Every structure is written in structure tokens, then in C-alpha cells.
């Protein structure tokens, strides 16, 4: 078990973002965290990344509380841009290299090339699609144990989506665990092991993707429609 959540709750002043989530994330599998906007996916990831403290409940990374050690091993990609405007693509790589000891500069170069970015491009001038690709290249150039990607396919064209899917699959070594949040279910359907459906801050359904498909005689996309319609 790499990540274990037990009755996690996160309350903001007048809103409950996460409302009693218990979830076990097993090593070496690819998980889709599914649900519409505002269902609590991002808050859950932020708690696991150690950026948000839960109001109650527990969460452990390999049996230990979330902290400095887990942050070294977890590569988290948020939906917000996380590079400064003055940085070039090359600077962004160096910045990441300084922060994370598992960052592979050579791999970063490769991914920048694949995403058709230039090392000299300024972060400020990148279109939203290119900025999204930069975040993905930086995150996936780490040799982390757990990757958490929040909406990695948002705002990205179909061709580039394919490239991102390929890169995610390359990262999916036997010991790497991947958690992808998305409301683009179709794109994820064939690459995931598990589907976790989040609704109003709680887990509505969680299971092995193939078992869900066979058990219900429906695709993940159809199950999604059923849950959220």
C-alpha cells in the first residue's frame, strides 16, 4: 500500500471539499480519479501532496505521515502553472533539478523535445497548451514513486494527448504508481488499472477497471454518465 486515506475530511469556511474519503492506493497501478469539477479530486490530491492539511481523518504514505520524506518521492502536478514568468524552459528544468534529487535532466530534454517545446522559450510567452506540456515534462522527468497528475489532458490538443498518454505509460514502471485526475474519461479508459469515482467529496465507486466493465457490462465512460447524470 503506497497511500492510505482513512475517513479524510477537508472543510473550508462554508464548504466541505472532501467528505469522508477512505481509499487505498496500491503500488504499481494506474488510478483514474474521476468526477466533475468541484467534486473534491484536487483537494484530495493536495492533501496527499502535503499542500493542504485535512480537517480530520488520517492519510499515510507507506505507513508514515505525509511530510518531507513523502514529498521527495511524490511528483505532484497541480492545475495551476508553477513556473515563474521570467523563466525559460531551460530555467524551469534547472529549478526542478535544484528542488528534486530524482529529477533526470536528460529525460527532461527528451520530453521537451517530444512536446515540441524549445529550451529557450519563455514560460511567459507559452500558450496555455504549451504551458501545460511544460508542466507535464517537468513532472514526468522525475523518477518518483508516486505521480499525481491533476487534469494532465486539459487544454491539450488530441495529438499532444497521445504523446502525453505515451509518456505516462513509459513512466509506469512496475514500481511506479500513478494517480490521474480527469473528467476526460474516454482518454483514460484504456490505460488505467483502477477507477475511483468521486462525487460530492466522497467515493461513489472504486474498483478494478476491467472488473467494473465486466461486472456491469458497461464501459467506464457509461458508468461515469450513470453516476453523475
Amino acid at each position, binding site marked *: 500500500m503506497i497511500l492510505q486515506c482513512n475517513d479524510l475530511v477537508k472543510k473550508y469556511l462554508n464548504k466541505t471539499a472532501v467528505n469522508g474519503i477512505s481509499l487505498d492506493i496500491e503500488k*504499481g*497501478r*494506474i488510478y483514474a480519479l474521476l468526477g466533475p469539477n468541484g467534486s473534491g479530486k484536487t483537494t484530495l490530491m493536495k492533501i496527499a501532496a502535503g499542500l493542504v492539511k485535512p480537517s480530520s481523518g488520517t492519510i499515510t504514505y507507506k505507513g508514515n505521515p505525509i511530510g518531507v520524506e513523502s514529498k521527495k518521492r511524490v511528483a505532484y502536478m497541480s492545475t495551476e502553472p508553477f513556473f515563474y514568468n521570467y523563466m525559460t524552459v531551460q530555467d524551469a528544468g534547472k529549478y526542478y533539478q535544484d528542488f528534486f534529487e530524482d529529477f533526470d535532466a536528460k529525460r527532461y530534454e527528451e520530453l521537451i523535445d517530444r512536446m515540441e517545446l524549445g529550451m529557450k522559450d519563455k514560460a511567459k510567452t507559452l500558450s496555455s497548451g504549451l504551458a501545460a506540456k511544460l508542466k507535464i515534462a517537468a513532472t514526468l522527468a522525475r523518477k518518483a514513486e508516486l505521480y499525481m497528475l491533476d487534469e494532465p489532458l486539459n487544454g491539450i490538443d488530441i495529438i499532444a494527448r*497521445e504523446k502525453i*498518454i*505515451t509518456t505516462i*505509460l*513509459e513512466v*509506469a514502471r*512496475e514500481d511506479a504508481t500513478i494517480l490521474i485526475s480527469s473528467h476526460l474519461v*474516454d482518454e483514460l*479508459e*484504456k*490505460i*488505467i*488499472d483502477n477507477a475511483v469515482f468521486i462525487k460530492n467529496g466522497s467515493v461513489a465507486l472504486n474498483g478494478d*477497471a*476491467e472488473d467494473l*466493465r*465486466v461486472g456491469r*457490462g*458497461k*464501459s*467506464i*465512460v*457509461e458508468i461515469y454518465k450513470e453516476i453523475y447524470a
Partner: protein
Amino acid sequence: MEFNNNIPIYVQVIHDIKKDMVNGVLALGEKLPSGRELALKYKINPNTASRIYKEMETEEICYTKRGLGTYVTEDMSKLKSIREEMAGSLLDNFIEGMEQLGFTKEELIQLLEYKYETK
């Protein structure tokens, strides 16, 4: 490859590999891609890829040489039976569909002959 989301992915990939074997794209005894390569080729989950080889081994369509990889069967008769099996299921679907449209066996045969003549 375009996937149909209503059929298990491993079933669809196995079907595609079988088709390659029948067509001769994959030769008897040829080495198959590793599980990871297969996952990247079809853009599928790596655990699904290893399941595909497990299923194909059970069906004796391929075999694993320890430490060397997975290979297409060398058994010609196996290939023949795959071909017949695939043709059989295509025919079943075809006949079922035509029967639903109310075609009789005779009409169907006539229609097929006509189709081939005008092809």
C-alpha cells in the same frame, strides 16, 4: 488502434494480434514485443499487456522462453484453427444480422454470389 469501450481491452488486443498472425504480419516463431513495448504500441495499461500474454499462453498461441521473451507459436495447425475460429465468429455475426433483417439462407447465398460477381 481504435478501441471499443464495451469490450475488454485485452480481448480486443488479442484479436488484433491473432489477425496479424493469420495475415502473416507476425511469422510463426517470431519474437513478440515485451509487455512494456506492447503497452506502448497499443497505448494500454502495462498490467493489461502482461495479462494479454498470459491469456495467449493459456490459449497456446504464444509461449515464453525464460529470460528471452514471448514468441509466436511454431504450430501451424494452431494458426489454422485460429483462422477458422475468427472466420466462424465473423460468419455467426453476419448470419445473425441478416436473419434479423429477415433474409433466408437461399436469399443470403444468392446475395453473396451477386455481390462477388459485381465486385
